[in-house]
């Protein structure tokens, strides 16, 4: 390990490793600086499980074709048009080859997991999950001769006129506190784990947010780049949030703290009042809106309430539901006002109209005469024990990033492309994903732009 490399990769997740491998395969000497300790390496890739790639025909693990056009339409729909079409279409085209390329780097696919049938055609799942994928990429990178340093926190970037010169380290690596490189690939994620930064937009409410992924995505590299003249992209005030169990740890609870039971009951706030149509839409959209809805409620807490007839309708949960033989008993355990909760449920039950329940479609079970209504899957809550999950906003990722070109090259605030700085992954996801999300897209952005960034960074270093 020296202090001068062709390509320096900052970050240690999917995008960073794809960049490192692709740069190394392009003939460059490569150092990866992962700010986390070895166990926590890989940022939020640890918590992922699949990737969305376009393909023209069914494969061994994908049940049917998913064309570039269909992928584009899905992206357009989830972002409401907040995307860079040129960049997005380029990514979608490149994603086709990623299906094979990533396997050549040691990653193995498997058919969609139990309970995710709706993704069986579009998304390829990693055998063993995101950490298994990372382990494979690290193994390949090390076999190729990529140097990797853990606990390698970067404190400053030396950038002159849009030209990266060196990175300064908190702790020396083999005696060096400054690493120089011909090209830089920044793949260090967003800032969702930086509560102080979130507070700039969300105020004190951010103290009640839970961070679903790594505590190491504090956005320090993103901030350095923006402070040093890189053009920003994406709404800084926005983040992707879902409702997760309020008993989850502050950081890194991962996918297992999620709740998908909203449609089977009602959701009330700390005043035991309903506040939104629980039957508005089908998975996965219904899953993605509840984080923001709960964030807007007092103390950022809410309770999914259902009865014993539906407990087997959704996946088993990490935390058991809180139970009461009566509504009042349940309210007591949740520290809600019993009379108000009883009134809310009685009114809801009275408003439920008969219908044929089917949670796989937008069915005809509706309420009448209450506000807000429940427009699908409305059934009476009347069979004890009564059950509840407390939920809080769980932040997945942020949208603010560095603007890039098709070559993953960063653009400076004056519109000029940087000579030698590239970005990949969540740190530039906002270029493609201005808002919203669809399963597996983060990994697509990471792998596609990681591979491109590594290739271009190596090309620059050769010239």
């Amino acid at each position, binding site marked *: 390990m020296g202090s001068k490399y062709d390509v320096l990769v900052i970050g240690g997740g999917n995008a960073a490793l794809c960049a490192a491998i692709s740069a190394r395969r392009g003939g460059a000497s490569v150092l990866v600086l992962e700010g986390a300790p070895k*166990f926590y390496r890989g940022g939020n890739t640890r918590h992922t499980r699949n990737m969305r790639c376009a393909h023209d025909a069914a494969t061994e693990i994908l049940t049917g074709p998913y064309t570039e056009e269909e992928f584009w339409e899905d992206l357009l729909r989830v972002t409401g048009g907040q995307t860079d079409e040129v960049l997005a279409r380029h990514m979608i085209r490149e994603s086709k080859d990623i299906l094979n390329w990533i396997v050549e780097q040691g990653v193995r696919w498997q058919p969609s997991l139990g309970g995710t049938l709706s993704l069986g055609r579009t998304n390829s799942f990693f055998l063993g999950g995101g950490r298994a994928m990372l382990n494979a990429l690290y*193994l390949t990178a090390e076999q190729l001769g990529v140097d990797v340093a853990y606990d390698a926190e970067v404190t400053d970037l030396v950038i002159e006129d849009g030209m990266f010169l060196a990175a300064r380290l908190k702790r020396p690596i083999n005696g060096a506190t400054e690493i120089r490189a011909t090209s830089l690939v920044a793949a260090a994620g967003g800032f969702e784990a930086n509560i102080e930064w979130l507070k700039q937009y969300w105020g004190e409410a951010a103290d009640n947010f839970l961070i679903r992924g790594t505590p190491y995505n504090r956005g320090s590299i993103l901030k350095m780049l923006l402070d040093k003249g890189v053009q920003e992209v994406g709404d800084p005030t926005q983040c992707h949030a879902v409702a997760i169990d309020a008993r989850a740890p502050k950081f890194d609870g991962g996918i297992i703290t999620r709740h998908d039971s909203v449609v089977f009951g009602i959701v009330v706030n700390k005043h035991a009042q309903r506040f939104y149509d629980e039957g508005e839409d089908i998975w996965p959209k219904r899953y993605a809106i509840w984080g923001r809805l709960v964030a807007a409620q007092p103390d950022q807490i809410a309770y999914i309430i259902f009865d014993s007839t539906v407990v087997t309708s959704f996946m088993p949960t990490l935390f058991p539901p809180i139970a009461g033989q009566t509504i009042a008993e349940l309210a007591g355990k949740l520290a809600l006002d019993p009379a108000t909760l009883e009134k809310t449920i009685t009114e809801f039950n009275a408003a439920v109209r008969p219908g044929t329940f089917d949670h796989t479609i937008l069915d005809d079970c509706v309420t009448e005469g209450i506000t807000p209504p429940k427009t699908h899957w409305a059934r009476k809550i009347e069979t004890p024990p009564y059950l509840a999950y407390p939920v809080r906003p769980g932040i997945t990722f942020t949208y603010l990033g560095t603007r890039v070109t098709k070559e993953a090259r960063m653009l400076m605030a004056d519109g000029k492309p940087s000579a030698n700085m590239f970005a990949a992954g969540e740190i530039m996801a906002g270029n493609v994903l201005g808002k919203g999300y669809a399963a597996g897209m983060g990994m697509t952005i990471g792998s596609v732009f990681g591979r491109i960034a590594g290739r271009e960074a190596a090309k620059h270093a050769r010239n």
Partner: protein
Amino acid sequence: MHGTRILDEADRLMTVCNSCRYCEGLCAVFPAMEMRRAFSDGDLNYLANLCHSCGACYVDCQFSPPHEFNVNVPKTLAIARAESYAAYAWPQALSGAFARNGLVISLVSALSMAAFILGFVALNDRGVLFGAHAGPGAFYKLMPHNAMAALFSAAFLYAILALVMSVRAFWRDIGPPIGGRADGGSIFQAIRDAGELRYLHGGGVGCYNEDDKPTDRRKLFHHLTFYGFLLCFAATSVATLYHYLLGREAPYPWWDLPVVLGTLGGIGLVVGPIGLFVAKSRRAPELLDENSYGMDVGFIAMLFLTGATGMLVLILRETAAMGPLLALHLGAVFALFITMPYGKFVHGIYRFAALVRYAQERRTAA
């Protein structure tokens, strides 16, 4: 709550894993888990014995230690598995043999080998014991064939009885239908899965040993040991048929079937256990149940002793060393037989039963 601390922990982990399911493609444990929402003692013992301890789920898990969810499935199931052997042992009075199994196995082996040596010394004069014998019936100058056959048949039949009674208790405990019988298709599937160690493969890349680079070493050494054992068993069976049906007495020439089978098996039983022992010594401690070290090594050592003494008898059978070596070999085999139901040998029986159950569940679900 379950009867033991380790089953409580296994229950906690299966609840975590059942809400994640990333590992469902790695082996049989996780698909079997997904067929349940709650876990009885029997369910957990079933999953524990279904686990082949390849370690992939630990290396792949985003929640393994130092994460606060502290998910370590291989180690937890290894401890639960070891405890299940004692829980289902027949007769229950002997279940304590599992508590300090290494010591028990060593003592039984030593006593058994000593008994054969003393027996040979007491019943033969020195000339016979240390004489060189050759030709058909050479072994039986030291111990009459009928005595040998009677003693070993009795030991073997007892082992079979105890194993059948134990696995019956296990089978009844691991799930509905109560007293359900295994169907032929499921048994055939389980024979294939066990025969190729299908689930000792880390989902395809090999199993995890001393670091994060998976290999197929343990699978290879287990195959050598297991098929070596089967070949030796086949050698003995063929020899028994020769004796009673054809009237041909051991020792047989080197090219004859019992010797060929026994030699190949013996090589497996020497090389395999050595490889398994080395792999065990090097394996990452976080994947192992250190309390079962004695049991594991005791069993490996006994298999090695059986194979090594057998090979020595073969090589030196025409010299004066044959008598003492034959005593040692018979002592080792006798000890192996009578401790079968009370040592690591049972892992194969319970795991096979679990694989049959799993094949059944898959067929029912399909």
